């Protein structure tokens, strides 16, 4: 199923749930569960805790039940689901006293291009867009061109009328700032 179809289906179910339709709500949770299970399993397996995925799924479902009113209908529903699931994952890791870090040496993996066949591609692209907009222009565009589009330093320098050394400095500072932003969560810095 295409990401846009899934988004439209789930959004429709949410709107019906808000109108008081219990059957739509049951269908919504049933449709979300495999999605949550896959996301939780994939994330927890990085920390060797794949067996706890079902616990995280159940906590996410309870959080969805209690906090569904915080979803803004003008925004993608899958982005909201991802935010809730990520929060529950971080909570679980905090309780399990697991510290997670990501290496800054491999800068290229920080902005791995989204796989278009991945249902989360739209959400990743949106979150990335929001992150890059926090940078002072043209840093966001420079980082995107260099790290996501894969342009060379020379091409980026020519495009933005900058020297090559200036481009490298801008990218280095931007990635430092973004790393600090990501690392601002106390226990999990992944």
């Amino acid at each position: 199923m295409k990401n846009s179809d899934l988004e439209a289906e789930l959004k429709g179910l949410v709107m019906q749930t808000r109108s008081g339709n219990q059957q739509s709500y049951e269908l919504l949770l049933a449709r979300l569960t495999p999605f949550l299970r896959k996301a939780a399993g994939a994330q927890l397996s990085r920390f060797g805790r794949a067996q706890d995925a079902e616990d995280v799924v159940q906590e996410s479902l309870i959080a969805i039940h209690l906090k569904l009113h915080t979803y803004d209908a003008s925004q993608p529903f899958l982005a909201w689901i991802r935010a809730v699931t990520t929060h529950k994952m971080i909570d679980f890791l905090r309780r399990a006293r697991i510290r997670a870090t990501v290496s800054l040496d491999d800068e290229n993996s920080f902005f791995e291009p989204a796989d278009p066949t991945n249902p989360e591609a739209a959400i990743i692209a949106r979150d990335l867009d929001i992150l890059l907009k926090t940078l002072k222009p043209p840093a966001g565009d420079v980082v995107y061109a260099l790290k996501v589009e894969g342009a060379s330093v020379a091409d980026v320098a020519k495009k933005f009328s900058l020297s090559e050394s200036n481009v490298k400095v801008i990218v280095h500072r931007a990635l430092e700032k973004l790393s600090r932003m990501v690392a601002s969560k106390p226990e999990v810095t992944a």
Partner: protein
Amino acid sequence: MKTDELISLLTKAVPPRPIMPFSMLGILVMTASLVLTISALGLRPEFAVGILPYSFYFKTAFFVVCALITLVALRYAARPVVTPLWPQRAFLVLLAGLFIAVLYELSQSSLETLHETFMLNRVEVCLLSVTVYGALGAMVFGFYLRRFAPADPARAAGWMGLAAAVCGALGYSVHCQSDSALFILLAYGGPCLMITLMSRLFGERFLRW
């Protein structure tokens, strides 16, 4: 418990919804501080005559705009997704305007006049009142905010404290006879800043979900 059983349990009722929007909560806190102020301290004398200086309207407008911006920021901060930055920037612009007004006032007034502004208007009553209103308001906001899902609980707690303090300050301002920008910055701004920092420090754990 199996996940299917949990889904059956959760779907026995539709998801809960909050009782009222944050703006209504802000109005309630402001009204409570207004009622307390009038009961304990009374209105400023100009109300009896019915002629208020323009500076009072500017002060009131400043607090109303502050309250609106902080309540909007709180509404965004209460959600689990990334929040837009425009409320924060709008608030900083408002603060910058206040600082410019303060600089203008300092350039136009003598030290004696400024001293009188603080001494004659019982700055200690203002500091205490805004602090108490802000603290009580922050508690009310805090219990309500626990129904939400802030992406960053510390940030949400900060906005919660600031919104509560500004709403409380708005209620108190009907008694306060000083409309001086410097007075607003120090006598109102000081307690608001303190409540914001305290909320951010201690409210974060309270708002974890």
